[in-house]
């Protein structure tokens, strides 16, 4: 389930400056979404996908599997965009339904394909960041961007306890399954509900134990910890800036030439 988290720690880029990785990923993401261009998206997918597959120790197949996580949403929404409910037939395909048509036009089809490309390219940017950067490093970037301290502290602690609570949840669910708690739909639903109830009670109990443990180490309302910082090398900085500039230029060029699709 937490595959992405696991992979992030084994990435070859893990020790690179998180700020740099975030700038590269988010910068490309913004250009990609802003440009909505086929060309920009294609380059993004190739570059980001390539970087990710090469740097994180995963196979292309596994990467494609990860890319398919948002497929359900993508297919459903894209169908809604590609297929029109129309009272007149359209140029590509029309199926009469009742008094109107379910119709696809060339325009809606190209729109749909473009949207899929942009979305996939954006996801490849997101994956570049998340598969190369540990969560705490991302939080450190947020802290430097002056995200309120309280928020950063909350996120840091939540991240830690996600795993503790997830373990509790899966342990209880497993033991319910051992006692046939999943024999049919209603039993499974009831089991899950009971598990969630006890999970909340236990989580809250844990919060009070954790507070005692932190107090006993002189916690005074602010969480001070050593931060390990990774600095970017000059050529990495130049490379990233150059890539972003080039992408921006391509995006503007595509827009100016009016080649919407390209």
């Amino acid at each position: 389930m937490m595959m992405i988290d696991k992979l992030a720690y084994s990435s070859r880029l893990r020790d690179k400056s998180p700020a740099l990785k975030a700038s590269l990923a988010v910068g490309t993401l913004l250009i990609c979404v802003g440009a909505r261009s086929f060309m920009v998206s294609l380059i993004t997918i190739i570059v980001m996908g390539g970087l990710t597959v090469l740097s994180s120790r995963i196979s292309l197949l596994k990467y494609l599997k990860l890319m398919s996580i948002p497929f359900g949403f993508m297919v459903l929404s894209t169908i809604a965009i590609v297929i029109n409910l129309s009272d007149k037939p359209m140029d590509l395909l029309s199926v009469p339904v009742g008094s109107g048509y379910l119709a696809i036009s060339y325009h809606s089809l190209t729109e749909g394909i473009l949207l899929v490309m942009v979305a996939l390219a954006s996801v490849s940017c997101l994956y570049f960041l998340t598969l190369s950067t540990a969560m705490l490093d991302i939080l450190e970037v947020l802290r430097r961007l002056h995200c309120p301290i309280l928020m950063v502290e909350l996120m840091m602690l939540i991240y830690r306890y996600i795993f503790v609570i997830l373990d509790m949840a899966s342990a209880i669910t497993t033991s319910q399954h051992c006692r046939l708690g999943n024999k049919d739909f209603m039993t499974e639903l009831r089991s899950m509900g009971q598990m969630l109830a006890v999970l909340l009670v236990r989580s809250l109990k844990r919060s009070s134990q954790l507070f005692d443990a932190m107090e006993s180490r002189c916690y005074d309302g602010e969480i001070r910890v050593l931060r390990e910082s990774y600095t970017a090398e000059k050529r990495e900085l130049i490379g990233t800036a150059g890539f972003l500039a080039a992408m921006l230029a391509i995006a503007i060029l595509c827009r100016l030439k009016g080649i919407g699709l390209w």
Partner: protein
Amino acid sequence: MNGNADIIMELENLCYTYEDGTEALKGIDLQIRRGEKLAIMGANGSGKSTLFLTLNGIHKPTRGKLLFNGRPVEYSRKGLLDLRKKVGIVFQDPDSQLFSASVVQEISFGILNLGVPEKEAAKRVEEVMEELNILLFRNKPTHFLSGGQKKRVSIADILVMDPEMIILDEPAAALDPKHARMIDGIIDKLSEKGITVILSTHDVDRALKWADRVVLLEDGIVIREAKPDAVFQEEEVLMRTNLEKPAVLKLFETLCRAGILNENLKIPHTVQELEQYINNR
């Protein structure tokens, strides 16, 4: 039933690999005899817990075969329910097993899932509570129970389903000696009823005292499987699994070497037996 009726479960080259690629079981061959007391030992991470979850069908082997009562386990919904009906697991940490606020509700969960009518289930729950001395605290909410009480409820959880085989993961962990003894007594009763009991423990003294057979796991492989007195005399396999020779055995050998006890005596399994040898000398 085909095959050997004495064998309740048979594992043939059983392998299990987790989704993330961790190979937890790397080909386990094992026959579990009906009614036997089997201790499974091994360091943390040697695959004990994975093995247990495979034995009752929570994990489907990635390779190899699992036979229950001579028939290969079917991994259909029905096949799994049939298996889990007969093979119960008592987990190490009662908190990962108990999820109801009430003791009676907790214990009745499994038997009601078997489809037993409520009245009959209620009767059976009462019987089991009496058997495991739970009646005294039956009305306490589960989260106010002590460790030993929780443990008893978690055994009742499984016992009420009338399984042929019960797996207990470190049943005495975190209990004080008195409650650990109480649980030992309960486990003995299970065996007396003819239930096959599998138990994991780090405690060599307990394994020597209790088990008919000890299986040593290391890194997803069975490295030794024999009677406890045999296994615990093999320094080399003990080293590999980070176990120490039981104190009773060490002292018995020392006493033999010093000429105080006769080497031909049956190997003692408990401090009491060793004390008797000394007294009868």
